[in-house]
Each structure stands twice: as structure tokens, then as C-alpha cells.
């Protein structure tokens, strides 16, 4: 619980971050680290506290990458082209719940969920439609999917191949971060161990065939949205990342062969300085661990490059226009924290998926920060701030405390199986809710300044006819394919799944070429691996 304290000024308020870290009235040079040069350094130099590149936004602005996806592949393709036409510089794909869980659109569990929270992708045909007329050799594409990530990547690689674009030319990111699924986002297909094998197979395959591709985006975003503190987001995300490194090394890969392609994804919550400190601490810890623990020699292996998304959870359904302001402040924290790409949420997202108008305001928010405010004129303008450096050190310290606890439990995979991070997050979420309800924390429009609510926000409605259309699409693909080739490909996939020495990527590509659906590939693998069920606890 945050405590109320009365200071000399007499203002009755909680002087602590949103995560509950106490904040002093004043920071001075005595709050700087003992060896500031070593801890802070210069941008583009170890330990990268001030940024991963020497030139940062003087060289190149961050990528403005709005996450989009709803309805069918054709509809999302329209939204993608709208965003590219309005100056967006990269694409980011949101998948619907059935796709995230590995169900085809005509699976009984998919009823009512098709295309609701993202785009429905069941087949190679859908993937080709999704990116029709988009130059995949020039636009970088991000795909937010985890448990069936290897299958979606196989769809993507084959879709590009059919347009004459080799996998070596494809640039972008697929999320693939399965540990945070068990921790926070909770969209899974397989038990933890085989899921980790699939991730490692993908890292191994893409390190050889996709030099411009990030096979994993180690994500704190969902951990934070589930209610974690900033320190928990930092610690669990980095520990997940270090765990993927350990698994890839155990496969016999050289750290410098894959570490430069690992990328990260953080939340930008509303506590401005705490967020900036979080990104700075993250870069420093990652660089140190990669160099000192894993012996990386290639400098690119040490660089934590990350995407940022403003906090959906900070948005309110009450007085929704206020969300534009929240998002702008959060986006600014991401920029001052040195992000490589950014998604800004739309103000209507506490009500429904965003309308086109709301998405445009969100994108314009980034453009205003980039073009009007002047914050991108100099590199890391907050470096050396007594407060920011002290908070960076504090977050680093809290992160290492969590690392020790996780190590005591036998590492992250074991900690996840025992529900440790899950419980820590649920406790933090409950504590925050209590602070809101007791009024220790103020939320404008919700428990303070509640007068004058505007309920007239237009919202996006998903046409219910899209679901039967998508069901018909997947059935049409099933009806027209070569059954014998399909059966052969799925049985080869099944056999490979039984042999842990096999890399599953090649078998998935073959199955995709034979027009296997996502659900069929997932079910084939579940036949060997089993499924996953979380023990309900609160």
C-alpha cells in the first residue's frame, strides 16, 4: 500500500510511484551512482544506459508501428494500407483469440470469437490475403502471436516465397515469447517444456535462414497489463530473455549467432520517470548479463532493442478523450527512454477496438512528439538527472532481487510452473485496486473529477457476418487441397515432434505448402505434446 505522507509543503498526497516506490522530495549529486561514468556512460557504448545507438533519434526516428487487426484478412489488409498511407513506417499484426490458441475458425471453441480481437488467420491463403499488395521486402512486419508462432512464421515465409521474396529478405518480428504467456497473457497450446522446444527450434532456424528477422520479442507489456509493478515487468521480462538464451546455448548455438536478433517489448505506463528509468535499467542489465554471464563478444549481442506500447490498462472508459493525454505522456516516456519503435493506443480502447479516426489521432500523437516538441533533437536529454539516475539504479536493484528469488526456485521455467510470477503479479494488481478504491491513488474521471462524462464516443463494431465468411474460407481450403500430400506432411510433423533432435520448422513449412490449417498443425503437435491447463487460483 502506498502511504500518505505530509511534508513541509503540506500537500496531502502519495509521494510514491504507481508501483509503490517511495520518492524523496529532492535528489542531488549524492544520489548518483558511485562511479557515474561507468554506470551511465555514453549512448552507443557499454553499458548502454543512455541508448543503444550513438546517434539515436538524430540518426533515425523510432519506427511508428501501430498494432492492428480485426475481422478477416481482407479487412485488416485495408487497415494496414490505410496506416501506411498515413505515414506509418512498419506493420504490426493483432490476431484473434482462436488464432492465438491454435483453433481454426470453425472449431467449436471459436464460436463468437472469430475476428473479434484481431484478425483470423487459419491458412496460407489467409496470410497471403493479409499482406496482399504490401511490399514485404521493404516494410518490416511484426506479428503478435506466441504459442503457435512457429506455424504463423511458416505461413508468412511461404506466402512471401510465393511472391518471389526469399526468407533472407524478410524483416520484422514475431513475438514467440511463450514464458510470458504462462505468466500473464494466458494464450497457450502446449505444456511448458515442449513449448520451449518450439521456441528454440524457431530461434535456431531463423538464425540460419532469416538474418533480418527477430524470431522473438521478449515481452513485458502483458506482464504489466496483468497488473505487475514496473520492477516486476523489468525482472520477469529480462529473466525470460536470459532463459531463452540459456536454451539456445544448450542447443549448441553460439551466443553471437542469435543474440543480436533478440528483441524486447515493454509497456509505457503513466508514471513518467519510473518508466524512463525502467528502460534505462533494462538496457544496462541486459548488456552486462550478455557480456559477463554468457560471454557475448559481438557488440550487437549486448544491445537491448525494444518496442514500446502505451498502457492499455491506464485508459479509462470514463471521459475517454482524457486518454489522448495519457497516451501522449506515456509515448513521451517511451521516446525519452530510447525506444526503437512505438505503438500509441487509441482513446476509445477502453470501450472497444479502435475506430479509424481514433487510430489516426494516436498516430498523430507520435508525429507531434517527433516533429514538434523538439525532444528528438538531442540524445538522451535526461541522462545525468539526479532523479532519473537514482531511479534507474533502484529499479536495477529490485530486478536483481527478483532474479535471486527466481534462481532459488530453480530458474524461470520452474518458477513459472510453480506460479511464482503469476502470484506476484496478482498481488500487485490487487494492491493497486485497493489503492484506487480507498482513494490513495487518484484516477481522473474514475475516482476524481468525475463530473462531465462524455458517453458519445462512436465505437467500432465487428460485423457478425464475418465469422461465417471466415468459416467458409477455411472450409474451402480444406475442400480443394491434395489430401495425400497433406496426410504425408502431417504425419512427418508428428514423427518429428516425437524426436527432440529434429527441428520442427522444416516440417511446418512442408505442412504449410500442403495447405494444412493452423488448427491441424496444432492438433498434430498436441497429439504428441499434450495440451496445457492452468490450476485456477486467485
Amino acid at each position: 500500500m502506498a502511504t500518505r505522507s505530509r511534508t513541509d509543503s503540506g500537500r496531502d498526497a502519495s509521494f510514491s510511484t504507481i508501483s509503490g516506490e517511495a520518492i524523496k522530495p529532492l535528489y542531488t549529486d549524492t544520489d548518483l551512482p558511485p562511479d557515474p561514468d561507468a554506470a551511465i556512460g555514453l549512448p552507443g557504448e557499454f553499458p548502454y544506459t543512455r541508448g543503444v545507438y550513438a546517434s539515436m533519434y538524430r540518426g533515425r526516428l523510432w519506427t511508428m508501428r501501430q498494432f492492428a487487426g480485426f475481422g478477416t484478412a481482407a479487412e485488416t489488409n485495408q487497415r494496414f494500407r490505410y496506416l501506411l498511407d498515413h505515414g506509418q513506417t512498419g506493420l504490426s499484426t493483432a490476431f484473434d483469440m482462436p488464432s492465438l490458441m491454435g483453433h481454426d475458425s470453425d472449431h467449436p471453441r471459436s464460436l463468437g470469437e472469430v475476428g473479434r480481437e484481431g484478425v483470423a488467420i487459419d491458412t496460407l491463403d489467409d496470410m497471403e490475403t493479409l499482406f496482399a499488395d504490401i511490399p514485404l521486402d521493404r516494410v518490416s512486419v511484426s506479428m503478435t502471436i506466441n504459442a503457435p508462432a512457429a506455424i504463423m512464421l511458416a505461413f508468412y515465409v511461404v506466402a512471401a516465397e510465393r511472391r518471389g521474396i526469399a526468407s533472407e529478405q524478410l524483416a520484422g518480428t514475431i513475438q514467440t515469447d511463450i514464458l510470458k504467456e504462462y505468466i500473464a497473457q494466458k494464450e497457450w497450446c502446449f505444456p511448458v517444456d515442449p513449448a520451449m522446444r518450439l521456441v528454440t527450434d524457431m530461434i535456431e532456424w531463423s538464425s540460419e535462414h532469416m538474418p533480418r528477422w527477430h524470431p522473438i520479442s521478449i515481452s513485458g507489456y502483458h506482464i504489466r497489463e496483468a497488473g505487475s509493478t514496473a520492477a516486476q515487468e523489468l525482472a520477469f521480462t529480462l529473466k525470460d530473455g536470459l532463459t531463452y538464451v540459456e536454451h539456445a546455448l544448450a542447443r549448441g548455438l553460439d551466443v553471437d549467432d542469435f543474440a543480436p536478433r533478440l528483441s524486447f517489448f515493454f509497456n509505457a505506463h503513466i508514471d513518467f520517470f519510473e518508466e524512463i528509468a525502467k528502460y534505462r535499467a533494462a538496457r544496462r542489465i541486459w548488456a552486462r548479463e550478455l557480456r559477463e554471464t554468457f560471454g557475448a563478444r559481438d557488440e550487437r549481442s549486448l544491445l537491448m532493442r525494444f518496442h514500446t506500447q502505451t498502457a492499455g490498462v491506464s485508459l479509462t472508459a470514463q471521459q475517454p478523450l482524457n486518454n489522448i493525454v495519457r497516451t501522449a505522456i506515456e509515448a513521451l516516456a517511451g521516446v525519452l527512454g530510447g525506444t526503437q519503435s512505438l505503438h500509441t493506443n487509441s482513446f476509445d480502447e477502453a470501450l472497444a477496438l479502435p475506430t479509424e479516426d481514433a487510430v489516426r489521432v494516436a498516430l498523430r500523437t507520435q508525429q507531434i512528439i517527433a516533429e514538434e516538441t523538439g525532444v528528438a533533437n538531442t540524445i538522451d536529454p535526461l541522462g545525468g538527472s539526479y532523479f532519473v539516475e537514482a531511479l534507474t539504479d533502484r529499479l536495477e536493484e529490485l530486478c536483481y532481487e527478483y532474479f535471486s528469488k527466481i534462481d532459488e526456485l530453480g530458474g524461470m521455467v520452474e518458477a513459472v510452473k510453480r506460479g511464482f510470477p503469476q502470484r506476484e503479479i496478482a498481488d500487485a494488481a490487487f494492491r493497486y485496486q485497493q489503492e484506487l478504491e480507498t482513494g490513495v491513488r487518484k484516477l481522473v474521471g474514475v475516482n476524481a473529477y468525475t463530473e462531465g462524462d462524455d458517453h458519445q464516443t462512436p465505437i467500432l463494431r465487428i460485423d457478425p457476418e464475418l465469422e461465417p465468411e471466415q468459416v467458409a474460407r477455411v472450409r474451402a481450403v480444406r475442400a480443394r487441397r491434395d489430401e495425400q500430400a497433406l496426410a504425408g506432411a502431417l504425419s512427418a510433423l508428428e514423427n518429428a515432434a516425437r524426436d527432440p533432435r529434429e527441428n520442427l520448422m522444416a516440417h511446418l513449412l512442408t505442412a504449410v505448402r500442403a495447405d494444412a490449417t493452423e488448427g491441424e498443425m496444432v492438433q498434430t503437435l498436441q497429439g504428441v505434446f499434450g495440451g496445457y491447463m492452468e490450476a485456477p487460483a486467485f
Partner: protein
Amino acid sequence: MRPGPNTLRLAPMSTSTEKKIRVVVAKPGLDGHDRGAKIIARALRDAGMEVIYTGLHQTPEQIVETVIQEDADAVGLSILSGAHMTLVPRIMELLAEQGVEDVVVTVGGTIPDDDVQELKRMGVAEVFTPGASTQQAIDFIRGAVRA
């Protein structure tokens, strides 16, 4: 079917003469957003209710079975997948088919206003949208179950 005389139910270890309210907190559908469900489950428990949390990814059939087996007074459905207009009507239908008419059904999630009205017409007692407090949920369930 309601649990018959074979169902073993221990008397609550409470000095209160009033029976504890039994609430099932359920997550229908495929979304994994369980922050709200867990917060509500804890808050209801802290308010003295017996809470049964189903866990994630439940089908309407599984939820209705839990409600019956647990002899619940109320069920809180938490949905953030946009599938509420498919899943909630199905749950209401199954409850009616099973002759369960005295269970208070509430829904929580990102539910547009028009859908709130529609859900209430189907017999949902209350819909809690973003920003609702746990105290509102506690007070509502207490009032509705005791009524």
C-alpha cells in the same frame, strides 16, 4: 440437476447465523485477461463470501455445470474477448434448460452500452464495465442474493 442429498456439504465454520453467499467467478471464452476476475474473486472472498474461481478458457457448459455442482447463489462472468453476445446468451439458455432460475448472473468486461441493455433483457442482473469498483460488485451481489 441441483445437487441431491448425496452431496456432502459441511456447515460453514462461522458463528454467524447467516449462510455465506456462494459465488462462482468464471472466465468464459478464449481470452486470457484474468486480472479483473482474480481481483473480484479476492474482493468477494474478503467480503465474506465463498468464492469458486473456474480458471480460464471455460465453455458455457463447464460454467453451468460448476454453478450447479457448487450450489452457487451467484455467478460472475468475466469476458474481455468481445464474444459476450455469443457466450452469455448460451450460458443463460443452459441455466434455463437446467431449471436454474434463482442464480444471480452478473457480467464484467469491456461491454458496449447497447449490449449491456440487451444482456439485461436476457436476464443478466447487472453488467460491470471498466472503472466499476469491487465494492459496487460486493454490494450488488449481496443485495441481489438476499432479495
